[in-house]
């Protein structure tokens, strides 16, 4: 009896293990299809269109993208590192407020801050109008910096991307604080010398990691550069795809962009690894911050409030103002359908991403073998890849599949299947999974790592079966991580623009797409409702992040 029972239990178990053994690599393979498709075009001989691109615009794309990266790098380093140092190491009025409020610009997508600033600083905007009223100048009488330019785009991106550097630099400064900084100060070095001699070199890997994340976002940006009329890789891909109608050349441009992104990924991963070695202490204790004198305090306050003002308060305030003044026209059934589209899409895709992340990370946890680990790693690399590139990589194979199926069905049965995958929500949701699965995967894996194997084993030794362990141990312990994963992906999808633009079904509008379209038509005020909704929802993950920051600080000081 016993033997029979055991054997059936064994075979059940082996079937389940096989589902993981096959399922995990299969999902990873499926998710890497877009990248593989795009990269395969590196080996396709270049066509006439490509030659045309090389002769005419490619140089512009390369140079503009590089200049943009240089500008953003300078901007985020300046703002990110200085605010991180001030809030973590110096004591001045408002410090604890700035500590979390400096993350707020993350809530605003770059394309939204771009058109808000355009509305503020354009010829017809309030700033220039006020200037003319005061001085009596007319058109052409004075010089005013052109916001819709390459420099403007770099500024816009810097304003919303500096939190990446801020976050990682801050963590690095706090991690190194106890021993090395105290030693430096006891040897007679003041705040400035300590900063340049000790803190900055030690935090460098973390800062580089943050910088590479910001640069990945810069390369992925489409909305800002398109709106400002700056030709970069992403706008080039769009133009080649839609304007020249040439998939191969668009894919080749995408592949070139991917190579740059991969270089950044390697830089980021390498820096993070190094950052671990540069973490100089395991001991945590309340650190003594530099006490600033009134003049220094004022400077610190101005720097931090400047970042906050220009990165969040000003654009959010302008959006709010527009929204209030256009409330009557904007709040209609169309807006409601935008909201329901966006919620439905982001909700479904984030839920699916969560389920996949659970499946993959359980697969890795249970099997723990290298194929599972590699598969999960591959499935999670999409976060670095620009939405435009993913969209091209989804569109090409999906369209080929649809055409082939349609052709075959017509030949065999005489009826057309039309577009099954491309041009439907399937393609869009798949692209979101490729791009954002990494986010939920990371969160779920971190949560699962807290459930040690011995916790399962103790439960089993007390007569608890697998299902009951999941219900009584895993779910209660994972709850927070699952909610976080869901929220983070949800918000990311809500903000996503380029992939949605390319892959959405005909006339299917979301908040991001509508905000972008209205802004492109110079209807800035009308775009504010959709934009403001995105920003408000975008604040949720910022709150989550800032809560973890405060909690870790409390944990350190107790």
């Amino acid at each position, binding site marked *: 009896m*016993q033997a029979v029972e055991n054997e059936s239990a064994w075979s059940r178990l082996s079937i389940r293990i096989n589902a993981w053994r096959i399922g995990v690599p299969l999902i990873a393979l499926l998710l890497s299809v877009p990248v593989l498709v795009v990269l395969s075009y590196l080996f396709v001989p270049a066509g006439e269109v490509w030659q045309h691109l090389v002769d005419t615009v490619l140089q512009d794309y390369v140079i503009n993208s590089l200049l943009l990266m240089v500008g953003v790098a300078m901007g985020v380093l300046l703002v990110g590192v200085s605010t991180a140092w001030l809030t973590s190491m110096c004591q001045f009025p408002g410090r604890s407020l700035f500590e979390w409020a400096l993350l707020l610009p993350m809530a605003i997508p770059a394309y939204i801050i771009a058109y808000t600033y355009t509305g503020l600083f354009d010829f017809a905007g309030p700033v220039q109008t006020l200037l003319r009223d005061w001085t009596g100048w007319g058109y052409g009488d004075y010089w005013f910096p052109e916001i819709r330019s390459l420099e403007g785009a770099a500024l816009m991106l810097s304003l919303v991307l500096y939190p990446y550097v801020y976050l990682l630099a801050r963590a690095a400064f706090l991690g190194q604080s106890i021993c090395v900084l105290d030693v430096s100060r006891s040897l007679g070095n003041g705040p400035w010398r300590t900063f340049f001699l000790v803190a900055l070199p030690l935090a460098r890997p973390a800062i580089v990691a943050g910088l590479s994340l910001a640069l990945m976002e810069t390369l992925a940006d489409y909305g800002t550069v398109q709106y400002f009329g700056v030709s970069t890789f992403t706008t080039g891909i769009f133009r080649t795809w839609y304007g020249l109608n040439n998939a191969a050349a668009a894919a080749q441009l995408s592949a070139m962009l991917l190579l740059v992104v991969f270089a950044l990924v390697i830089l980021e991963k390498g820096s993070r690894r190094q950052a671990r070695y540069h973490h100089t202490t395991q001991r945590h204790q309340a650190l003594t911050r530099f006490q600033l004198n009134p003049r220094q305090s004022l400077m610190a306050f101005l720097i931090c409030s400047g970042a906050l003002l220009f990165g969040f308060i000003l654009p959010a305030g302008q959006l709010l103002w527009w929204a209030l003044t256009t409330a009557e026209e904007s709040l209609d059934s169309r807006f409601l359908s935008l909201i329901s589209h966006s919620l439905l899409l982001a909700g479904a895709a984030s839920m699916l991403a969560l389920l996949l992340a659970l499946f993959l990370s359980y697969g890795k946890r249970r099997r723990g073998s290298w194929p599972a680990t590699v598969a999960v790693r591959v499935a999670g690399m999409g976060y670095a890849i620009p939405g435009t590139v993913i969209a091209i990589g989804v569109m090409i194979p999906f369209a080929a599949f649809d055409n082939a199926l349609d052709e075959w069905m017509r030949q065999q049965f005489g009826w057309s299947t039309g577009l099954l995958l491309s041009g439907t929500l399937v393609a869009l949701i798949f692209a979101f999974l490729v791009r954002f699965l990494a986010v939920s995967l990371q969160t779920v894996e971190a949560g699962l790592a807290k459930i040690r194997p011995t*916790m399962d084993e103790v439960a*089993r*030794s*007390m*007569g608890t*079966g697998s299902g009951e362990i999941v219900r009584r141990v895993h779910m209660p312990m994972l709850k927070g991580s699952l909610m976080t994963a869901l929220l983070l992906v949800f918000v990311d999808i809500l903000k996503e623009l380029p992939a949605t633009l390319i892959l959405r079904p005909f006339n299917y509008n979301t908040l991001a797409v509508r905000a972008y379209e209205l802004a492109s038509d110079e209807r800035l005020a009308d775009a504010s409702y959709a934009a403001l909704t995105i920003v408000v929802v975008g604040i949720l993950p910022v709150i989550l992040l800032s809560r973890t920051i405060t909690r870790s600080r409390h944990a350190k000081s107790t």
Partner: protein
Amino acid sequence: MRNQLEVKHASVKYGSQTVVDDVSFDLESGAISCLLGPSGCGKTSLLRAIAGFEPLAEGEILLHGRSVSRPAQTMAPEKRRVGMVFQDFALYPHLTVMGNVAFGLRGFNRKQQKQRVKELLELVGLAGLEEKYPHQLSGGQQQRVALIRAMAPRPDILLLDEPFSGLDVELREQLAREVRAILKREGVTAILVTHDQLEAFALADSIGVLGAGRLRQWDSGYTIYHQPKDRFVAEFIGQGAMIPGRVIGGGSIDSALGIMAGNFIQQPHMGDRVELLLRPDDVVHDDESDFKLEIVDKVFQGAEYLYTLSLEEGIELLCLVQSHHDHEIGEKIGVRLYVDHVVAFPVSH
């Protein structure tokens, strides 16, 4: 008395590597025993095989008379009625002490659960902590909660995997003694896995020493210390000196200590080269003795000094002496040998 656990010729393999090799032993109901050995000796794998987490490659394990493990037949851990305590305690952070201890109590109503948890908390001196969460407890308290959680469903056997190594050294021995008292009071059959011999001595009725996957000796602590069956056990347990010698007629041994006769553990063969094991407490300091040796090193250990004495060129003895006898290095002190059983190992060529 009935055997609670029987391990018969058990082997555990990871791939082609044998980590537990043909181990057999029995455990009576209510007995506390210990699997002792250096890291990598297979003791944890053996414990996990008894718990049902590792399948057997060969042999059989019987729990309370039922066969639970045979090659290709492993009864799931949740059906075995075993209790486990891990090194990291594995307490559930989302549950209170009450929730943790009551986790495995099946077929109890709420009132009975509360009653049982209360009773166990009193047993380990933690009464009143029902509503605390694990992170609010000290390491020693967490350890005790993990212990009573495993004991709560009254398992057939309790398995403890290095349960004290996560704790401060000062706490360990005291806790080991407390745990022994608790287990004895409740009549629990238990196996402890450890690499720390003092823990094993403090807790266990009998000790199995494992080396390289094989059970080297199964005996009381005293016997393992003073009558080790092989060189591995002799070297792993305690300190001691090996004195070279040669077997002469009449089962006596000639060495730098003179001719020794007496109770040999293994009868030596005439003419064999052997090594004698002398523990530090086999060498007794006696000012009256004519046998004087020079001190070459000394270590203060609180109640005692451990002196290293030079017997002749290259051969040294260890001698444990009350710390009132404070002698200088270079001084000669008188000693006597006090040996019940002469332990001699053949020298391999």
